[in-house]
């Protein structure tokens, strides 16, 4: 379990992280979501014991990161932003170094190194010098060093940043596979990543916690949640008819697409499909909106910026 207690980090007058408190339980995959410079990385650096908080502290499986930093770090696997590694070493040398540093039993080191190399499909490049590897491989090397000691807590700072779509997918499925009874915290500014791997999201901006919810919960905050969008030949005419329905709150037309927002009454989709059937409109697309994460993200972080 991770418990952050009023974490603060300031650089002079600038508050990078401002009184952040939260708890993370086993089995949770928590996404830190926020604009660049929101304090996500700084929070992670404090949790991993790299930076000392200006005030406040965090408990890592009950161990205080400020008072007992080295002991707390034993529970954590950490992928720093940009996945740094010692470029002049080979993959195997680097993994051996990390395995030893992670206090793996001397006789188990070769087996652990081998296992993690296989797990991340690095066996083809294990004797290659890291700086000659492609970005995707380097990222996998970074992930490998983070999980080599099978930590209970995994903190990954932008694990998919700069990867191509296939590599992103690969990294995400890896994270999902490890998620079962661990704690995983990832930071990202990619919205779909949160929906893809996390079961909890914290939106952070200007060092403050603005929202703490499940991805579904966040999406449900969207004004598009349960709205119905359709593409028809004459949207204006259709809009005026559909606007009369008792279930419709507001109507918007954007780029030929008509969106009907629900009011308190349920059954908007049914009412719309019935009306479409009745009036014999030529509908080329019709869908029920789940909600738009980017819109939620924008409204939450912008509201903070204005405040």
């Amino acid at each position, binding site marked *: 379990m991770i418990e952050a207690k009023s974490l603060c980090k300031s650089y002079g007058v600038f508050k990078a992280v401002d009184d952040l408190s939260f708890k993370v339980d086993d089995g949770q995959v928590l996404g830190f979501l926020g604009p660049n410079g929101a304090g996500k990385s700084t929070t992670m650096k404090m949790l991993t014991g790299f930076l000392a908080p200006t005030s406040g502290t965090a408990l890592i499986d009950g161990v205080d990161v400020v008072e007992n930093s*080295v002991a707390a770090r034993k529970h954590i696997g950490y992928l720093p932003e940009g996945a740094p590694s010692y470029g002049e*070493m080979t993959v195997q040398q680097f993994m051996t170094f990390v395995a030893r540093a992670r206090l793996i039993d001397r006789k188990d080191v070769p087996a652990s190194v081998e296992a993690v190399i296989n797990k991340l499909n690095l066996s083809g490049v294990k004797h290659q010098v890291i700086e000659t590897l492609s970005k995707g491989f380097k990222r996998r090397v970074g992930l490998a060093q983070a999980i080599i000691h099978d930590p209970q807590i995994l903190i990954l700072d932008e694990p998919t940043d700069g990867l191509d779509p296939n590599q992103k997918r690969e990294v995400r499925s890896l994270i999902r596979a490890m998620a079962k009874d661990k704690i995983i915290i990832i930071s990202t500014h990619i919205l779909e990543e949160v929906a893809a791997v996390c079961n909890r999201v914290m939106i952070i901006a200007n060092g403050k916690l603005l929202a703490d919810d499940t991805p579904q919960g966040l999406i449900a905050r969207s004004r598009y949640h349960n709205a119905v969008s359709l593409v028809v030949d004459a949207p204006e005419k259709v809009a005026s008819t559909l606007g009369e329905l008792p279930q419709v709150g507001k109507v918007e037309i954007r780029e030929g697409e008509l969106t009907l927002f629900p009011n308190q009454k349920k059954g908007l989709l049914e009412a719309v499909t019935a009306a479409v059937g009745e009036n014999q409109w030529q509908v080329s697309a019709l869908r029920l909106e789940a909600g738009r994460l980017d819109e939620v993200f924008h409204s939450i972080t912008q509201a903070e910026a204005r405040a």
Partner: protein
Amino acid sequence: MNGMTNVMRRELTGYFATPVAYVFLIIFLVMTGIFAFYLGNFYERGFADLDSFFRFHPWLYLFLVPAISMRLWAEERRSGTIELLLTLPLTTLQAVVGKFLAAWLFIGLALLLTLPMWLTVNYLGDPDNGVILAAYFGSWLMAGGFLAIGSCMSALTRNQVVAFILSIVVCFMFLLSGLPMVMNLFYGWAPQIVVDGIASLSFLQHFADISKGVIDLRDLVYFALVIGFWLLANILILDMKKAD
């Protein structure tokens, strides 16, 4: 302890994985040779000792040791691996000492490779090998002093060139503090105790004592203190200023 040796081993592997180690060793050997034979008049002096060889070590170290130490922490900062290293379950002390020891052992290796000089002088004459051994030891200790300064300077910046220049400047001050050109600035107005204090900081004086074959406890304590002081400063700098 294990953490420290692990860091040290990694660092040493790093030296030999890049041309740094080989370039350094070759330059070191060539330079010691040039200094001893041309400037030190190794043959012409007609003495069976290595004085002409050791005499130039402080000046050689002034430039070569910062070349080794500049990357110790600046490189970690630049590549971001400092974040990796200092989130491993290691204390900052273990990381700092491990890296320092790696560099110090490496310089020890460079010194060992000058063994042909010792063989030569033994072939040509009948030198006092005790003195030579003491001088080797003194030279290595002095290199440790330079190295500790360089390591600390390297922790200040992510730029290796800046680290290199800062190290040379600080090492130069330590080297010169016993020479008349510095001491003359203080004679006459500064209290004697300050003058003595500054004079006793000089690497040259302490090295000269040891290389005469006199291993005085005070000289050992002096180098131990210099190394300890700068490594402690190194740790404090890292703890205060981890991220840029």
